[in-house]
């Protein structure tokens, strides 16, 4: 997947995957606010309108409910719409459509109608954005039966996971970490190969403890692993990548070896996705655990404005501190 192609950013990889998917399958459509001539406010859809025209790249009126709802209608008719919601803070109106319709169209009609759509949206903080532009709603969508929820954390994984999301026969919520959009570049070959939507990725192996995270938080999590390594502690780092369905085996296998786990998320702690992972570990790896499961998370507060958001966002130092707490158990 990576290695042989041009070095591109995560948002560039999203763009590349969209181009690839549209070239491969005429049923793939892109719709959303400003996705056409403007190429999207983050340029994720740049060039698509020029390549495929306004019948496949649709600038919509400013109406989030209908962006999701129209995508459902298109999907039921055999198209593969990829709907962009400009920021996840504005994806909440779509929750109704995704939960009450997209996620259950297949079940309601016993497979007669299906909903192969993707709702993609940049999410998360740390970009000094204005209010409502830094939200982390992944747990809301992950809670819903019938939806897949994916959050890539590198250009190569963004490319492969988005391709698979578009090709998936069911609805996928694809949250792109805004903070990582241009944070790093990586060589991504445009092979057209997707990555599995039911697999966690082990980014780094280590015998002492397991750090589990997803999306933008992998950045701090990997930094923390470096800092821990300076202390002589070998951390295994797992990128969950697909939150739903969860590849619990990779996590449990790791915890079985390390006996210690820290879950890192940016979203508020209560009822966050980290709680799900903690519960799975408690159920599936209790006898391996040498220390209580630790969560490093955002607070149960409204996402602060840019001047204070750094206090909210989990830092590498907080992750290291949590790791040291679990290491303290002998």
């Amino acid at each position: 997947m990576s290695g042989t192609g041009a070095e591109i950013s995560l948002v560039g990889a999203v763009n590349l995957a969209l181009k690839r998917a549209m070239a491969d399958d005429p049923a793939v459509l892109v719709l959303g606010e400003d996705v056409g001539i403007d190429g999207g406010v983050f340029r994720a859809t740049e060039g698509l309108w020029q390549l495929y025209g306004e019948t496949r790249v649709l600038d919509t009126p400013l109406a989030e409910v209908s962006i999701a709802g129209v995508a459902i209608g298109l999907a039921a008719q055999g198209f593969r719409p990829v709907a962009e919601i400009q920021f996840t803070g504005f994806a909440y109106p779509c929750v109704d459509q995704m939960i009450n319709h997209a996620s259950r169209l297949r079940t309601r009609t016993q497979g007669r109608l299906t909903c192969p759509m993707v709702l993609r949206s940049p999410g998360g903080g740390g970009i000094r954005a204005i209010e409502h532009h830094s939200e982390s709603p992944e747990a809301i969508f992950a809670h819903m039966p019938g939806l897949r929820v994916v959050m890539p954390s590198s250009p190569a994984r963004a490319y492969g996971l988005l391709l698979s999301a578009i090709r998936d026969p069911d609805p996928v919520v694809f949250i792109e970490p805004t903070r990582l959009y241009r944070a790093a570049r990586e060589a991504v070959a445009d092979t057209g190969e997707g990555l599995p939507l039911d697999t966690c990725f082990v980014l780094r192996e280590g015998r002492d403890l397991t750090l589990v995270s997803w999306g933008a938080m992998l950045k701090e999590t990997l930094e923390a692993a470096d800092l821990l390594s300076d202390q002589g502690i070998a951390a295994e780092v797992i990128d969950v990548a697909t939150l739903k369905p969860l590849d619990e085996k990779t996590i449990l296998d790791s915890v079985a070896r390390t006996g210690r786990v820290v879950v890192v998320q940016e979203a508020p702690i209560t009822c966050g996705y980290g709680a799900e992972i903690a519960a799975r570990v408690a159920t599936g790896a209790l006898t391996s655990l040498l220390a209580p499961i630790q969560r490093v998370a955002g607070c149960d507060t409204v996402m602060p404005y840019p001047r204070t958001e750094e206090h909210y966002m989990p830092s590498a130092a907080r992750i290291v501190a949590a790791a040291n707490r679990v290491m303290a158990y002998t």
Partner: protein
Amino acid sequence: MTTIAEFSIGSTRILDPSGAVVGDLPDFASDRDELVALYRAMVLTRAFDAKAIALQRTGRLGTYASSLGQEAVPVGLAAAMRPDDVLVPSFREHGAQLWRGVTLEELFLFWGGDERGNDFAGPREDFPTCVPVGTHAPHAVGVALAMKLRQEPRAAVCVFGDGATSKGDVLEALNMAGVWQAPAVFVVNNNGWAISVPRARQTAAETLAQKAIGAGIPGEQIDGNDVIAMRHVADRALARARSGGGPTLIEAVTYRLSDHTTADDASRYREDTDVSPHWKQEPLVRLRTYLTAAHGWTKADEEALLRACDDAVDAAAETYLATPPMPPDAMFAHTFAELPADLEAQKAALTGGDE
């Protein structure tokens, strides 16, 4: 101040409540068989309605939403549709569903709480009954857009109630359909009530048809108890949509003679004296009166039709009642195209297997 735009909302009625012709009869309405087909569909819908309520009252069906008194809207509308148009219905369009080939058994199954009732053997592309109010309107825009993108001369037809017109979803959908000139026909089934809230408390607008004006699409009102008007106006709107003329909003003014659903008691919020005048306006009586006067519909014709409809409904109810429920693990069958591994374990646990 100068006036830079002016609007008006037209209204159509062809048969008045006494069965008298008060407008231009469209071509189809001179054909006795066509009218009998419409009448039969309304009678069948009402027979289904009565049976559904009876089954619910005896604990053999779930909560049910009656369409008593408003049969002309779905029947007239469906009669104007072609098989390859797509219906995106709310929850009172049994008449339209039956006309389009959804079976009585399937309707009973759905209201009996069985998803197989939405797996229509007939209109495979039609959407299932939408229980949330108004949220299906954007789906119709998506369906219509799909047809337009494929350059197919087809249309999507969406029905919702007067209460639904207060939802942003519906207004967004009208607006988007207008922008894209999507081949969609929206029908407000204005039955006067959103559960206990009367039409006047839903919006200060004089008509619901004028909700179209803000979206830049044509909007008109019809007498929704006049099946001839319903079919005629829908014919026109559908023809326009299929030939690239864009969307239309039709407000069909009717009246909900029943409770909102079998879980509702309408006497809590409206007097019998408010309801009874509407029995003189209802759609079956007026078409029957006209059929009798203009086409020699007889008492014997009427009795034979009622018997045939009751028999069909009874037979379907028997089939429904004899259909065993799905096994517990069926709930996993269509959650995803392929069951993810982490759900396999849940399925095994539910069915008593090992985790």
